[in-house]
């Protein structure tokens, strides 16, 4: 599955070669950061998780057997770390009132923030922000499949390998993701239409 140069690079990395590690970070840092930021929807958190991912890559590359592409293995680590972080953040949100004890001004620390992906064109920023909000409301596996497809530009075969599932399962996940996103967006646009008619 691995090409020769990639295989050589991984072998060097498995031997703890610092130069090989620098090359791997250089090659994959944007891929990792882009995937993480699309899942956690926060630049600050994405930076931290990206560092975490590469630390884990360095520490556990020995367990990489080469039966999948290195990028597939890396995507799995990225998704696991990002989802784990999300769960921890949700747990913290639940105890937000306790956390608020520790802020200096007595404010609650965790607010649902508006997220703007840095790679979105200016004219699409507002709509993309709504899409990211809607993405948070659909099931996890549908969201991951949708993001890998739309944001990372991966095909169904590649997504299937990362998510350890079949090509057809990915097709179905993507279709369900779109249907659920449309439902969620319809709710949002109906509400804002009602609000604007009330204001008039």
């Amino acid at each position, binding site marked *: 599955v691995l090409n020769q140069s990639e295989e050589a690079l991984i072998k060097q990395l498995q031997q703890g070669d610092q130069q090989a590690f620098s090359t791997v970070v250089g090659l994959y840092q944007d891929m990792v950061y882009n995937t993480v930021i699309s899942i956690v929807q926060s630049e600050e958190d994405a930076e931290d998780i990206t*560092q975490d991912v590469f630390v884990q890559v360095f520490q556990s590359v020995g367990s990489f057997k080469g039966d999948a592409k290195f990028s597939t293995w890396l995507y799995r680590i990225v998704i696991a770390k990002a989802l784990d972080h999300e769960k921890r953040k949700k747990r913290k949100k639940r105890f937000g009132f306790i956390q608020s004890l520790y802020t200096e001004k007595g404010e609650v620390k965790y607010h649902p923030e508006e997220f703007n992906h840095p790679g979105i064109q200016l004219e699409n920023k507002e709509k993309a922000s709504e899409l990211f909000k809607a993405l948070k409301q659909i099931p996890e596996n549908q969201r991951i499949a949708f993001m890998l497809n739309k944001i990372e530009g991966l095909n169904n075969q590649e997504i299937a390998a990362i998510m350890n599932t079949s090509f057809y399962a990915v097709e179905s996940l993507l279709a369900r993701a779109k249907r659920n996103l449309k439902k969620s967006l319809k709710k949002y646009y109906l509400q804002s239409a009602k609000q604007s008619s009330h204001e008039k």
Partner: protein
Amino acid sequence: MKSDEKIQQQIEETINSIDNIQRATAQPYLLTRINARLNNPAKNVWENIAIFISRPAVTIAGICLLVIINISVLVIKKATSANTVAERSFTTTADEEDEYTNLATIDYIENQ
């Protein structure tokens, strides 16, 4: 109908708004920061627990909890001992009453 069509159009536009998305790029000096993390591994669980416990709010809450437990134990103990005293005095009074009745009965028999 028109508003329905408009909403459908908005939904489509929103879904397609990320079609030409560019890859977000990581911050510069990422490698330096990763290397720093590798050289200074994160604190272990026990260190994190110690840090959490030493927070002033946690410490104060812990002390308050201990005080509340102590006070409630004292109150419960006091209530229990008061009940025991009342029970005892009630038993004593009942015994005295019995004795008085017995004496009265003896007096009555003797007078007859």
